[in-house]
């Protein structure tokens, strides 16, 4: 059917796929460059799969404003929504019932001059700055496939609308549009579906370390007055994770008794029964967190994967006709737990390179390589290079990682040019290896599962409700799964880990007379991408659902 429909074509100079911090910064920077040089205005389009910009944005988040200061120097006058300046930093090592406070706050964790933000609100504001420049943001349109001319990227095709769940067109069928561009900037976020395709086709990761990911799960709470001072930033290590697991918790306090509570779990865990959502519940039950949130109300929930691998895992970010920016490329500092400023700066540098290429009438990889040169000369490298091995060091356990991180900090990262790592998701072990052969009892449910009390802890299904996620129900399932693997191999070997790593109850094993069947509750999906990363057989492919579907992260 798709071959016979007539599609509209739109021609632009620069197409930006993804309206997050990286994509929008690229758009804004392009228009600034245009103004400075004058001449024929560039045509720029931004595609965003959310119904409105910012709705799929979720992060901690503490913002380092260095890139914002350069992009929008008068951001305070323009009322950028910065919830609170950071006043206090606390780091704790948690034990099951207690906490040890770090006597000093290590430099990477110092947040003086940074701001606690809702990334959803911040990106919405950024999109207003972009639209004020006359740039079109097509929200509600997802990039579905990359368009090529030979091996040159020439644009993106948006997803069809109005396809029913059997793949047949409905009355409201509208074919996707082909958007052709001289330069396409891929800003499709962590494990972006289009960037993933580019990486495979052009082996952009060759000679680099494999990417490692984590999943962040967060709730927005309204807590009783007086529990925590606005501007307080708390980070934790230790409990509920064990020393073979990477991750930690955070509590960020904003004005009006609103508090972000979240937990990041490395997707390089080895226990097949581990569930990141359970770790988050355990974290909330710890006296440190419970004392802040108990008696309050959870008002929002969300989850998102994040690229943790660092400098050595960033793929080649340029190719014929295209650039890759932000989380899609892995510009994140897992040591500082920050990536928004790097995403923004990578977008700005990509804009520089794209602008020059369009004006020169040459968008070849040879010319777009300038983007990489710019990154190498920028604060991005200055910040990421010294800590390039930290995440890989944590692959050897918490103690090794912690020691290495300390040494890297003190020595500015001279040690080891490159520490090799494995793709984090490959570390998960089978039930037999992790449990049976070691004489361990396989737990009934997830490891350390918590019975939700519906006050402080919740089940996934309840949480999903508070993500505001919504999809048109009558559309094909957007999680392409080779289900024949489920019962025959994955069940016996890993005991259906999709039920646990998905934070949104998308994957459900239904026991029927004929055996177990995987039920995919696709409309629960919060677009975190964890399944695409984490399933042991790499048989889950996340593709964008019909444009506009997904979470509504208001205030997250």
């Amino acid at each position: 059917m798709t071959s016979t429909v007539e599609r509209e074509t739109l021609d632009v100079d620069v197409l930006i796929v993804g309206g997050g911090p990286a994509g929008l910064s690229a758009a804004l920077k392009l228009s600034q460059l245009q103004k400075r040089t004058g001449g024929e205005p560039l045509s720029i389009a931004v595609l965003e799969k959310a119904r409105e910009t910012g709705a799929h944005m979720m992060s901690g988040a503490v913002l380092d404003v260095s890139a914002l200061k350069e992009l929008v120097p008068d951001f305070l006058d323009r009322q950028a929504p910065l919830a609170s300046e950071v006043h206090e930093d606390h780091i704790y090592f948690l034990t099951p019932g207690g906490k040890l406070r770090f006597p000093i706050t290590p430099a990477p964790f110092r947040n003086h001059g940074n701001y606690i933000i809702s990334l959803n609100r911040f990106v919405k504001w950024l999109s207003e700055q972009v639209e004020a420049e006359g740039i079109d943001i097509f929200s509600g349109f997802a990039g579905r496939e990359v368009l090529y001319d030979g091996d040159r990227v020439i644009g993106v095709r948006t997803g069809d609308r109005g396809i029913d769940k059997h793949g047949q067109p409905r009355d409201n069928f509208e074919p996707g549009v082909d958007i052709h561009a001289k330069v396409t900037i891929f800003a499709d976020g962590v494990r972006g579906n289009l960037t993933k395709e580019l990486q495979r086709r052009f082996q952009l990761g060759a000679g680099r370390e494999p990417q490692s990911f984590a999943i962040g799960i967060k709730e927005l709470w309204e807590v009783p007055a007086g529990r925590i001072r606005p501007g307080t930033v708390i980070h934790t290590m230790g409990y509920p994770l064990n020393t073979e697991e990477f991750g930690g918790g955070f509590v960020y306090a904003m004005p009006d008794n609103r508090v972000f509570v979240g937990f990041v779990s490395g997707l390089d865990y080895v226990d097949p029964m581990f569930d990141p959502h359970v770790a988050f519940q355990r974290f909330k039950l710890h006296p440190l967190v419970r004392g802040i949130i108990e008696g309050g109300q959870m008002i929002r929930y969300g989850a998102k994967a994040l690229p943790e691998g660092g400098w050595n895992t960033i793929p080649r970010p340029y190719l014929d006709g295209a650039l890759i920016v932000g989380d899609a490329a892995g510009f994140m500092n897992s040591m500082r737990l920050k990536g928004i400023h790097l995403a923004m700066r990578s977008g700005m540098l990509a804009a520089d390179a794209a602008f020059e290429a369009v004006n020169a009438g040459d968008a070849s990889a040879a010319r777009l390589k300038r983007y990489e040169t710019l990154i190498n000369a920028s604060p991005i490298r200055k910040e990421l290079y010294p800590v390039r091995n930290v995440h890989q060091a944590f692959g050897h356990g918490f103690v090794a990682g912690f020691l290495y991180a300390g040494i890297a900090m003190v020595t500015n990262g001279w040690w080891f040019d490159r520490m090799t790592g494995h793709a984090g998701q490959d570390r998960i072990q089978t039930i037999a290896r992790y449990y049976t052969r070691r004489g361990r009892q396989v737990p009934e449910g997830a490891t350390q599962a918590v019975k939700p009390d519906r006050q402080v802890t919740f089940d996934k299904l309840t949480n999903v409700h508070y993500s505001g996620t919504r999809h048109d129900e009558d559309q094909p399932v957007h999680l392409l799964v080779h289900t024949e693997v489920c019962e025959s191999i994955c069940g016996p070997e890993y005991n259906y880990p999709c039920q646990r790593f998905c934070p949104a109850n998308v994957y459900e094993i239904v026991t029927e007379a004929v055996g177990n069947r995987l039920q995919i509750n696709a409309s629960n999906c919060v677009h975190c991408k964890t399944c695409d990363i984490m399933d042991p057989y790499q048989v889950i492919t996340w593709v964008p659902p019909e444009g506009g579907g997904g979470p509504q992260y208001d205030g997250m």
Partner: protein
Amino acid sequence: MILVIAEQKNGTLNRASWETIAIAQQMAGGQPVKVAIPGGAVGPVAQELAAAKVAEVVRIEHEALEPYTPDGFTLALSAVIGQLAPQYVLLPHTYQTRDFVPKLAARMGRALVTDCTAFRPEGGALAFARPMFQGKLVAQVVPEGDAPHFVTFQIGAARADAVVKGDAPAAVTTVPVTVARAAIRQQPEAPFQEAKQAVDLSQAERIVAVGRGIKSQENLELARKVAAAFGAELAASRPICDAGWLPMERQIGSSGQTVAPKLYVALGISGAIQHLVGMKGSRTIVAINKDAEAPIFEVADYGIAGDLFEIAPALIAELGK
């Protein structure tokens, strides 16, 4: 004076109009309440509305108001509202209201508060309760600026049978309006229905809903019998419709229908919040579930913690007596 804009389609009154009239009566505190009914020919509907204890029922009739268009309604209603000069204009928060009322309020330059569930006095004015974050928080909104203030009320915010009826029918008057066809920019097409909707659960007075506890498709027959015994429509929670045991149009909850019947019987439904938001406005909720800690019991008026396969036949037998 408080003016309620009632809604009709092809001469049939939308029953949510009664709910809004009930709210207007509770808000009035001595002020007169009037009800306006716009449309092409609304005589019989106006007579029906006149049963309520209100000062007046106002027919706003014009051939250009049939079929409905947002331009036509905005032109006619802004003229009538300007003439009647009410303090508040109340509307049921229907699809049609959602379509034209923002335009109408903007045209008249007046405040609009949408999708409210209640009101309360607040420093000499009225504050309207507006759920946010899917009902987790409730904002109290006090409209400012010149009257009239437009307020729309969520379906189920009041009970239709709470309307105070008058001893004698209220006066029915007609306010002449002029609506130039040329000023209407929309060209309505025939109403579009994506699928044949065999049932409209939102209009059902009694609903029996089944969930996962029913275990198999064959057992649905039992649920059907319970529904028949109550004279109720059969509905379901999501897993049942996902499994294809019942059509999607019978699904209650955030991805299905929202209902507020007089009686809601939940058979083997645990009460995930996605289901609760679709039925918690029901007047009387009866829950039968074997897990006594299931969240459905938090909203149920009557709960039986037990095996539905024992209780349902007993219910049927008892109702048959």
